[in-house]
């Protein structure tokens, strides 16, 4: 039997070891960061809403709603995926937000085919 070169063995060993350092995903998209973030208090209106999820998102089956202080839905642009990161969603605001408490409601379909949803508030002073 032809013997394996040490370099190949080291590469194989590194590959095996690296498998133990892979951060397993939760397999269902979770909201990892948002801008504005939950319970944030802003001095001025944000220009856009940005969301980063733990998995890539299917925009066709995802919904985002921004509710004002009176629980009326605000006009927002169509969500778009980040050009370099399919886990990230950007939504431009149609108009600057006046002072008040706003609620973000989100429901997303991740590429593994599962739906998740959530909501959070932020305040504009």
């Amino acid at each position: 039997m032809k013997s394996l070169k040490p370099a190949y063995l080291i590469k194989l060993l590194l590959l095996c070891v690296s498998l133990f350092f892979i951060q397993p995903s939760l397999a269902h998209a979770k909201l990892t960061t948002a801008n504005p973030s939950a319970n944030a208090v802003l001095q001025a209106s944000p220009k856009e809403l940005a969301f980063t999820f733990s998995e890539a998102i299917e925009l066709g089956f995802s919904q985002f709603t921004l509710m004002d202080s009176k629980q009326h839905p605000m006009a927002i642009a169509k969500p778009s995926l980040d050009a370099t990161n399919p886990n990230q969603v950007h939504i431009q605001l149609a108009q600057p937000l006046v002072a008040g408490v706003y609620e973000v409601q989100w429901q997303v379909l991740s590429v593994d085919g599962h739906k998740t949803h959530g909501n959070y508030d932020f305040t504009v002073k």
Partner: protein
Amino acid sequence: MFLTFFARGDLKKMLTIQIHQLLTVGVFICLLSAIALFGLETGLMGHGWSDVIDINTWGLVFSTHFGTIWRWELIIAFLSCLALCLNKRRDIVLMLMASAQLIGLGFIGHTVIHQGWVAKIQQSNAVVHLLACAYWFGCLMPVFFCSRFLYKAKQHNDARFALKQFSRYGHVAVCLVLVTGIINGLFIIPMPYNWGALYIKLLLIKILLVFVMVLIALYNRYYLVPKIASGSETSNKRFIYLIWFEWSLALVVLLLVSLFATMSP
């Protein structure tokens, strides 16, 4: 695969006749289940049963990652039905079609939760896992049919040859199933393990069943087969019963996987 690579001569003709009906039913079930799964996934992604029959929602589903893979699953399932009409090379064409469908399954579900090189390794691992499992489970039925020819003088040698070939590659397949299964778990399940989670409990039952299957395979290969070779009819009967038992366990494993693959680990 068993018919294409392992069976030869008169045995191949006999097995082809016996397995043909089973193969035909299997190919049609494959197409129907592929259509049904597309419908169910449409309802799950959309707003329930009303979207299952909504053509616009179908279009949206086909534009998703799942849809881009599943359109090929549907096309290949349909082509497999047509391939049943082939007179020549039908078995190898069906084997290639089934392999292509299994490879497609390696690119959907929990294997798309990572990105970049990690995703590529996870998906390659899942593809190897699926193909190795299919070899093991898929060959059990032909092995059952083949083992009945061990005591027929005309097909005895061919049956022994086919079972030997199956066993030789079976060792590799079982090892691959176990190794790729462990790697898949490392990719998907978050640490520290939540032993109380239903996903983990079902996974542990699956591991236990696979362990029993491995024990049966080892008992068959290293205890019963040498006895059958020396002419023991009792061992041959026990071998056939155990093949059936192993096949039933594999079916339960498949049902378990179908159930917990939809859950979050």
